[in-house]
């Protein structure tokens, strides 16, 4: 029998290859300090609206504590199909084309596992959410990053996409509005990208978790373009719009064959999402719009306030059109993103996330979340102004 030299050898090669999240070590330093104002938080600062929490409590009171169908409760799936149909004009059969997942993260994971054969290339735009590249690797695919740029407002350009397509390309992941840049994808660019996806027969995973947090009106989705529904896995969830991160409810809408494939992974890995959370999510979809709009208006005001102050500081910053992140350039300071974030933390006790945590293209930027109360944001910009002036 083969003897192993250390415990590390028990860990699979492809898992060993995944780097630790760039946020992780930074998180530990922040946690060890006191009086830090954090602009590094990727979740709403609002507590879930009371009527949604109350619905969860009521669900428990009624004794709804069992498993649900693998795909999710019929009531929630019906409501999701209704919402997506009304918002985007794309109709899904709730019985066979909607799957409720444990957050969008799980939906993304099972979608990738459902479509990737080992070695398939999956394209994604960068800077991007931290999980995209590792999730592809875990599904035995090859992640291929396509850079986006500040001068384009961090929008994915179709010509950059075209250059990245190879015969091995299986799919494209989109996330607009984007974490960490707040970029949205204009319709004209969506059309060009859709044409390429059809031409090269790509599967599209569109993660639209921030779609409701748009400051430029209702955003169209690439899924509603001709020829896209049959090749698209539409992903959304409740965490950001309804401040429900801890409930962990996301969903995927996709043609029946793809939904069935995802369900096969989901049924063995997760079985189903929590019934309490599903009941809460149903309440959010039915009656949550007013509270959601109120939160969005608050985010909009904070965004305006932050953009104003960053420009005063001389940190150039495009105005994000969605999500709750600002992604200012710190290149003018001559520091790397990590140095900037580290020194800002040590000298002024303000935490921001170094841009390189979101991929190589994020170097030279930091992510500042405005999912933090206005009075905290005010103090944070004062401290940052002192810091930048002293550089």
């Amino acid at each position, binding site marked *: 029998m083969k003897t192993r030299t250390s415990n590390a050898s028990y860990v699979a090669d492809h898992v060993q290859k995944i780097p630790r*999240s760039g*946020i992780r070590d*930074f*998180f530990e330093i*922040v*946690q060890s300090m006191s009086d*830090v104002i*954090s602009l*590094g*938080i*990727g*979740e709403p*600062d609002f*507590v879930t609206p009371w009527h949604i929490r109350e619905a969860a409590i009521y669900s428990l009171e009624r004794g709804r504590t069992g498993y649900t169908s693998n795909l999710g409760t019929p009531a929630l799936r019906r409501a999701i199909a209704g919402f997506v149909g009304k918002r985007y004009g794309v109709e899904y059969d709730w019985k066979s084309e909607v799957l409720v997942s444990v957050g969008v993260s799980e939906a993304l994971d099972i979608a990738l596992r459902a479509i990737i054969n080992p070695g398939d290339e999956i394209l994604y735009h960068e800077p991007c*959410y*931290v*999980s995209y590249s590792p999730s592809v690797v875990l599904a035995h695919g090859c992640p291929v990053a396509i850079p986006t740029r500040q001068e384009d407002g961090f929008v994915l350009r179709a010509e950059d996409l075209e250059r990245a397509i190879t015969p091995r390309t299986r799919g494209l992941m989109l996330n607009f509005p984007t*974490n960490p840049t707040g970029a949205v994808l204009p319709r004209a660019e969506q059309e060009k990208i859709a044409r390429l996806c059809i031409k090269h027969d790509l599967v599209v995973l569109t993660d639209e978790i921030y779609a409701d947090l748009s400051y430029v009106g209702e955003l169209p989705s690439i899924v509603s373009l001709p020829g896209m529904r049959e090749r698209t896995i539409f992903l959304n969830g409740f965490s950001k719009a309804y401040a429900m991160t801890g409930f962990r409810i996301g969903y995927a809408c996709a043609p029946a064959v793809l939904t069935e494939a995802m369900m096969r992974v989901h049924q063995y890995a997760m079985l189903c999402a929590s019934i309490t959370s599903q009941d809460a999510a149903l309440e959010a979809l039915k009656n949550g719009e007013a509270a959601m709009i109120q939160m969005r*208006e608050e985010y909009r*005001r*904070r965004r*305006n*306030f932050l953009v*104003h*102050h960053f420009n005063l500081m001389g940190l150039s910053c495009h105005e994000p059109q969605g999500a709750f992140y600002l992604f200012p350039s710190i290149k003018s300071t001559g520091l790397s993103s990590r140095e900037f974030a580290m020194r800002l933390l040590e000298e002024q006790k303000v*935490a921001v*996330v170094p841009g390189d*945590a979101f991929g190589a293209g994020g170097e030279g930027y930091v992510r500042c979340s405005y999912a933090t109360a*206005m009075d905290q944001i*005010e103090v944070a910009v004062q401290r940052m102004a002192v810091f930048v002036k002293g550089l």
Partner: protein
Amino acid sequence: MQEILNILEQDALASAEKISQQLKRPVEDVRRQIRQMEEDNVILAYKIIVDDEKANRNTVKAVIEVKITPEREGGFNRLAARIARFDEVKSCYLMSGGYDLLVIVEGTDLKKVATFVSEKLATIHGVLSTATHFMLKTYKEQGTLYAQEQVEERLPISP
């Protein structure tokens, strides 16, 4: 205008500068609009909400259901305005249903409130009856919870 009101309703101390930065509008515009709303009595007052118990103030509050006789021409308005003018009356509303006016009265002790009701309010010509309910505890006032919700410990950094 609505946007400015939304901000001031949440934080009456918000400066014109801060509001202008949140709304991307020139600060002079914001200042002028606030002044205009004050002059037009759109904004009636800026007040604070106090937890009397923590401030060690003994206040007694009562809700009083008042039935009154409507008058020719004036309806309920003249009598309602007359009642509302008393300093003890903190709020006064015309209601549908079983009674006409809902009056909220405040005083430093029970006796003062009771005296006000029996000697001032009930004796006004046109007041038919009163039913007084004393408030025992306040949980929420003008949209503000007295027991502030515990802000849960959010992770200081999350993706």
